[in-house]
């Protein structure tokens, strides 16, 4: 058992525009020359952090510096950039954007985050593990706050994903979310196992647990917070044994 983190804020963007069977988030606008060539997944990650700061009524200065850990999760956000590079739709300099690390790198640069980091690849269990990892960092005083960032985009590769109906649920829902965790109280239960896919209203992969958390905060789920997820036959579950500080089920 580890100490459960408290939830300070959550920013979550969910796709709504139906484009070829994918609920798309589109390409957010962002001012600045630096973002001219930035990939869509990078821009969505930045927008998710903006949304989190707005939710927490906090300034950028609050999260800047080396006491903020950044944990990024994705199952497939890099595939679109890989495709551009492989099919030579983008020049050699685009290679940088094919790496999953570029998304948290852009976020770290924009928000001056210089603390610990890790990048987990996979679906919902990866996000739950990133949250547990964050709880461990907070418990060991490696950081004062941890941001768990998740991004999934599908539109550019919808034709490829259509070939993998057993791997991915439907509809594919693009999402980007950022969760701000701080030291909390109570205990965090962490479980892993194997099992069948649970039915979900849409496939958000790594963003699924953040969407479930957003629903819980809105009072759509009653009782203590419990998050679970499935990917490639693997299941994971996180349970806040006591409600996170400052939170209660409505």
């Amino acid at each position: 058992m580890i100490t459960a983190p408290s939830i300070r804020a959550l920013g979550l963007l969910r796709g709504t525009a139906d484009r070829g069977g994918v609920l798309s988030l589109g390409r957010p606008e962002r001012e600045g020359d630096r973002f001219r060539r930035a990939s869509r997944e990078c821009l969505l990650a930045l927008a998710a952090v903006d949304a989190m700061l707005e939710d927490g009524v906090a300034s950028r200065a609050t999260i800047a510096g080396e006491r903020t850990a950044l944990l990024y999760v994705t199952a497939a956000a890099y595939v679109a950039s890989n495709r551009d590079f492989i099919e030579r739709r983008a020049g050699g300099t685009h290679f940088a954007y094919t790496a999953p690390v570029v998304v948290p790198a852009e976020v770290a640069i924009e928000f001056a985050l210089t603390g610990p980091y890790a990048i987990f690849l996979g679906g919902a269990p990866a996000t739950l593990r990133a949250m547990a990892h964050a709880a461990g960092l907070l418990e060991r005083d490696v950081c004062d706050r941890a941001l768990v960032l998740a991004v999934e985009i599908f539109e550019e590769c919808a034709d490829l994903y259509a070939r993998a109906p057993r791997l991915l649920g439907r509809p594919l829902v693009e999402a980007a979310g950022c969760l701000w965790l701080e030291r909390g109280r109570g205990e965090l239960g962490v479980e892993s196992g194997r099992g069948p896919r649970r039915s979900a209203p849409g496939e958000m992969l790594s963003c699924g647990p953040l969407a479930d958390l957003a629903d819980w905060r809105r009072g759509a789920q009653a009782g203590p917070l419990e998050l679970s997820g499935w990917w490639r036959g693997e299941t994971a579950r996180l349970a806040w044994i006591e409600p996170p500080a400052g939170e209660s089920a409505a």
Partner: protein
Amino acid sequence: MRVAVVVGTALGGVEEGEKVLAGSRRRRRLRDALYDGPGHNLARWLGSRGPVVTVSTACASGATALAVGAELLRRGEADAVVAGGYDILCRFVMRGFDALRSMTRDEVRPFDRRRSGLLLGEAAALVLLARERDAGPARLGTLLGYGSASDASHIAAPDPDGRGLERAIRAALRDADIGPDAVDFVSAHGTGTPLNDRIETAVLKRALGARAYAIPVNSIKASLGHTMGAAAALEAIMCLQASRHGLIPPTLHLEEPDPACDLDYVTGEARVLRPRISLSTSLGFGGCNAALVLEGAP
């Protein structure tokens, strides 16, 4: 027993992705093209029932994998962890590194004044991690500490001042609860690029103080190439093997030292020395920096 698999990779199954886009209709290919595919395949092959985790912090991925594996043990999610890193060479990665102009046409010469870049290598390196009480007497060594930090300076180039790497080293020493005087050996990232080796030397001097000049430093990338996601795990194993065998491998092709790189690099032949505690550093694309502190088994 719950055995977890934690692998680090910079490029995952990208070669499978190339085949999918070239028209392959095999359904399995798409699953394997996602970067966490190989980790799940390894877990299936091992018959692992524990968590399956893929991490990707570019060329620091192997170090991140060892740290995440240790964390799974710490919080009781697994009883043992197969952890490490891998990466393969394919057209995608060769074209990418060529575009970055980071590859040399010469030998890889870490810390040499003539150094002009890196050469890529292919590798997979895994260790079995267990809690102290479960490890038994046959252990290779102990992971004492880990630190990571982000540069927040550029998406593809390292921070010219190496502040992120310095923070990572300090965090790893703190996590291991040791000071610079306890470090016996440094396995440097040492890619052989003009910028990396100069930055790393300066950072080691700042982070370790006067002790930096008294510690042997090597880079095995001139021998094995830059193996990306495998590099940090491979170098961690090298540190522990150096402790076991009492020999530190040399930095090949370091013949004309760069005045800006003025530490005690191991050159020419392997040095007869049995380091107890080693520090291993890694820098990755996207401003990822990581450091491991390892203790060889007595």
